[in-house]
C-alpha cells in the first residue's frame, strides 16, 4: 500500500513523515526544504500488523497550478502514480488557505484522510475547528494531529490504512460554479463557506504579534545584516574554534594521533606482519580516515547549532534581509535558501535551486551555491586554522564571510557577463517563531554524524589506500625510498606548475587538491597519508608537518583555493542535472575555477607583499595572469553590453 503525504508548504509534512517512518529527513519551516519526493516504510510502532506500507513525502504546494518546479513534481506524482491513500495535512494555523488545495485533491478520486495538524497551536490560540462539521462538508475523515509531539498519529495511520484497504473511490463535495469559467473563485467561496461554519476564531491574525516585533528588529533595514553575521559568526566560531574545535583537537591529537596508530602498530607488529602491509593499513587506511574522522565532534556541534537555528524560524527572515542585496546582483531572497541548505552539503543545496522559477536566476544560484563551505570542507578549514592560526579565532568563521562576499561579487560578475533580464518576484511565508526542538536538532546531528562516518569509511578510505599506494610505489610497481619518485609525485608534478602563481610549490599540494575533487575531506586525508611517511611531526598541531609547505599567508590562500574552486564530483553531478545543459555546466565550472584561482592568487601575492614585504613565488607569472584575466573579463563584459544594447535589456 502506498500512502502519500500532501499539503501546503510548512504544514508539517516532513515532520509527520519523520515521525511515522523513523527517518531523519531535513524538515524546515520555509518552503523548498523538501524538493523531491521521499519514500520510506512505516515504522513498526505505527504498523502493528506488519502490512507492507510505503509512505511518500511530497513537496508542499498551495494548489495544483504549479508556480515553481517542485509543485509540479507533486502534481505529476499524484496524477501519475496514484497512491492508495492520500493524507492531506491541513495546517491548523491556516485552515482556510489549506482547504483550497484539499478541495482540489478530493476531486482526484483517491481516498483522502485529513490530518488537522498543529492542533497545539490551534488550541493555544483559542481557536476551535469543528472536526465533524469539516468532515461532513468535505466528505472525508478528519483526524487532529500534532506531528511534533506525535499526538494523534497512531489514529491517523490506522484510519489511513483502513481507508486504503476499502479502496472506495473518493467522492468530491459539490459546490456552485464548479464547472464555470471562474471555478477557482467559486472554489475559494466554497472554502470560505466551510471555514465560516467549522472554525471559531478567537484571535485576530492581523494584529501585531510578538513575532512581528521580533521581525522588526532581526529583519531591520540596517540591523538585519549585522545581526545575521553576528549569529553566523557565533555559530561557526563556537563549532570550529570553541567546543567543536576543542573536542576535535583532542580526537585528532590524542585518539587518532597517538592511541589508535600505536595500538594498531603494536597489534600488527606483534603478529609479525610485513612492514609494508603494516604501513598500508596503519599509515594509509587508518591514518587517512582518522585524520578526517577526528573532525567528527566539530561537525556534530555545527549541525546541532544550525538545526536549532533553522528550526526556530529565523532563516525565512534571512531571506527577507538578503533579498535587497541579492536583487542588486540579479538574484532574489529565494536564492538564499539553497545557500543555507548548501552549508550542510552542496548537493541538496544545488537541488534546492528548483524552487526558483526564473531559469537564469536558477542557473546563477546553482553556480554560486557551492561557494558556501559545506560540511566536507570543514575539516580543511579546521585543520589549517589549527596548524597556522592557533591564536587567531577569526580564521574559521572568516571563510563564511569570504563565501558570502564572493557570492555577491561572483553574482555581479555573472550578471555582467551573461545577458538576461531578471523578472523574478519574491514572496516568502514567514512562519511564527517557535522554541526549537532539541530532539530534532539531536536527530539531525546524529544523522550528519552517521553519514560523515559512512563517507569517511567508504570513499575516503578507498581514496586513501590508493593515495598510500601511489606515494609508496613507482610506475614500475616497485616500492620507492624517495617519495618524489612515486606515482603520486609524478601525477602531482604535472599539475603543480599551474599552482605556482598561487605560491603553492610542491607536488604534494597539487596532489591533495586533486583528490579533493573526489571528496573535499580527501585534502586532509591525503596530507595525512603523504606526511606520515616523511615527517615525524604531528599533522594537526600548530607548526606541524604542514608548515614545511606554507607560510600562514599561502596557507590561507590554499584554504581559499580548495573552498572556491569547483566542488566535489558528486556536487558537479547535481549541478549538471539542475542546469539541464552541458554548456551551462562548463560555464559554471570554468567560472568557479576562475574565481577560486584568482582569489587564491590575490591572497598569496598581495598578502605576502604586505606581510613579508617581499614578493611571493610566482610573482611575475601571477601578474601576467592577472593582466590577461582582466583583459579577458573586460572584453567579455563589453561584448555582453553590446548584445544587451541590441536586444534592449537593462543590466
Amino acid at each position, binding site marked *: 500500500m502506498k500512502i502519500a503525504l500532501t499539503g501546503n508548504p510548512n504544514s508539517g509534512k516532513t515532520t509527520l513523515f519523520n515521525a511515522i517512518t523513523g527517518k531523519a529527513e531535513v524538515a524546515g519551516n520555509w518552503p523548498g526544504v523538501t524538493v523531491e519526493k521521499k519514500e520510506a516504510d512505516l515504522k513498526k510502532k505505527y504498523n502493528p500488523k506488519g502490512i507492507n506500507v510505503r509512505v511518500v513525502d511530497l513537496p508542499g504546494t498551495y494548489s495544483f497550478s504549479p508556480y515553481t518546479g517542485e509543485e509540479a513534481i507533486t502534481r505529476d506524482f499524484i496524477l501519475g502514480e496514484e497512491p492508495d491513500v492520500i493524507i492531506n495535512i491541513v495546517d491548523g494555523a491556516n485552515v482556510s488557505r489549506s482547504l483550497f488545495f484539499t478541495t482540489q485533491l478530493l476531486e482526484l478520486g483517491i481516498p483522502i484522510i485529513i490530518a488537522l495538524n498543529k492542533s497545539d497551536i490551534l488550541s493555544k490560540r483559542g481557536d476551535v475547528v469543528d472536526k465533524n462539521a469539516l468532515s461532513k462538508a468535505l466528505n472525508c475523515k478528519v483526524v487532529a494531529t500534532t506531528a511534533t509531539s506525535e499526538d494523534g498519529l497512531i489514529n491517523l495511520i490506522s484510519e489511513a490504512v483502513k481507508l486504503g484497504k476499502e479502496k472506495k473511490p473518493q467522492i468530491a463535495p459539490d459546490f456552485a460554479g464548479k464547472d464555470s469559467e471562474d471555478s477557482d473563485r467559486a472554489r475559494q467561496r466554497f472554502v470560505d463557506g466551510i471555514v465560516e461554519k467549522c472554525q471559531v476564531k478567537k484571535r485576530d491574525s492581523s494584529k501585531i504579534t510578538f513575532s512581528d516585533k521580533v521581525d522588526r528588529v532581526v529583519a531591520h533595514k540596517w540591523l538585519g545584516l549585522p545581526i545575521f553575521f553576528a549569529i553566523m559568526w557565533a555559530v561557526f566560531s563556537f563549532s570550529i574554534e570553541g567546543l567543536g574545535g576543542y573536542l576535535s583537537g583532542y580526537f585528532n591529537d590524542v585518539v587518532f594521533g597517538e592511541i589508535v596508530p600505536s595500538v594498531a602498530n603494536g597489534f600488527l607488529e606483534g603478529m609479525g606482519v610485513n612492514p609494508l602491509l603494516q604501513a598500508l593499513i596503519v599509515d594509509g587506511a587508518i591514518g587517512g580516515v582518522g585524520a578526517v574522522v577526528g573532525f567528527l565532534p566539530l561537525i556534530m556541534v555545527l549541525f546541532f547549532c544550525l538545526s536549532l537555528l533553522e528550526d526556530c524560524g529565523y532563516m525565512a527572515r534571512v531571506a527577507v534581509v538578503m533579498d535587497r542585496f541579492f536583487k542588486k546582483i540579479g538574484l532574489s531572497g529565494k536564492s538564499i535558501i539553497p545557500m543555507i541548505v548548501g552549508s550542510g552539503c552542496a548537493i541538496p543545496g544545488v537541488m534546492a535551486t528548483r524552487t526558483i522559477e526564473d531559469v537564469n536566476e536558477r542557473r546563477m544560484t546553482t553556480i554560486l551555491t557551492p561557494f558556501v563551505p559545506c560540511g566536507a570542507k570543514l575539516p580543511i578549514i579546521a585543520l589549517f586554522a589549527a596548524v597556522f592560526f592557533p591564536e587567531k579565532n577569526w580564521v574559521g568563521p572568516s571563510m563564511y564571510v569570504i563565501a558570502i562576499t564572493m557570492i555577491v561579487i561572483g553574482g555581479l560578475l555573472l550578471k555582467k557577463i551573461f545577458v538576461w533580464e531578471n523578472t523574478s518576484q519574491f514572496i516568502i511565508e514567514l512562519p511564527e517563531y517557535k522554541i526549537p526542538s532539541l530532539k530534532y536538532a539531536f536527530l539531525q546531528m546524529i544523522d550528519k554524524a552517521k553519514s560523515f562516518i559512512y563517507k569517511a569509511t567508504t*570513499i575516503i578510505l578507498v581514496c586513501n589506500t590508493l593515495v598510500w599506494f601511489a606515494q609508496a610505489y613507482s610506475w614500475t610497481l616497485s616500492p620507492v625510498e624517495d617519495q618524489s619518485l612515486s606515482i603520486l609525485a609524478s601525477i602531482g608534478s604535472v599539475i603543480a606548475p599551474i599552482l605556482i602563481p598561487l605560491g603553492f610549490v610542491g607536488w604534494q599540494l597539487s596532489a591533495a587538491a586533486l583528490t579533493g575533487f573526489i571528496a573535499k575531506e580527501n585534502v586532509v586525508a591525503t596530507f595525512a597519508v603523504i606526511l606520515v611517511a616523511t615527517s615525524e611531526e604531528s599533522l594537526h598541531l600548530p607548526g606541524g608537518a604542514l608548515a614545511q609547505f606554507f607560510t600562514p599567508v599561502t596557507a590561507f590562500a590554499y584554504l581559499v583555493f580548495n573552498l572556491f574552486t569547483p566542488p566535489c564530483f558528486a556536487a558537479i553531478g547535481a549541478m549538471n542535472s539542475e542546469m539541464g545543459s552541458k554548456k551551462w555546466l562548463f560555464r559554471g565550472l570554468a567560472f568557479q575555477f576562475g574565481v577560486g584561482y584568482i582569489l587564491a592568487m590575490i591572497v598569496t601575492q598581495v598578502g605576502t607583499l604586505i606581510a613579508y614585504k617581499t614578493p611571493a613565488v610566482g610573482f611575475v607569472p601571477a601578474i601576467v595572469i592577472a593582466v590577461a584575466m582582466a583583459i579577458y573579463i573586460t572584453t567579455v563584459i563589453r561584448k555582453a553590453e553590446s548584445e544587451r544594447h541590441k536586444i534592449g535589456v537593462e543590466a
Partner: protein
Amino acid sequence: MLVNIIAGLIFGGILIFVSKKAWDDIRKNKCSCGSSCPGKKKSGKRQ
C-alpha cells in the same frame, strides 16, 4: 608468512567491500552527506 596472507586478505576484503559501496553510491549519483541527500534524480525534467 601465513600471518601476512591472512592480514592482507582481511584488509583486502574490507577494501573491496567499501570500494563496492563507494562505487554504488557514485553510480547512483548519491552523495554520502546524510539522508537529506536524495537518490538519483531524473535530469532534464524541467525547462
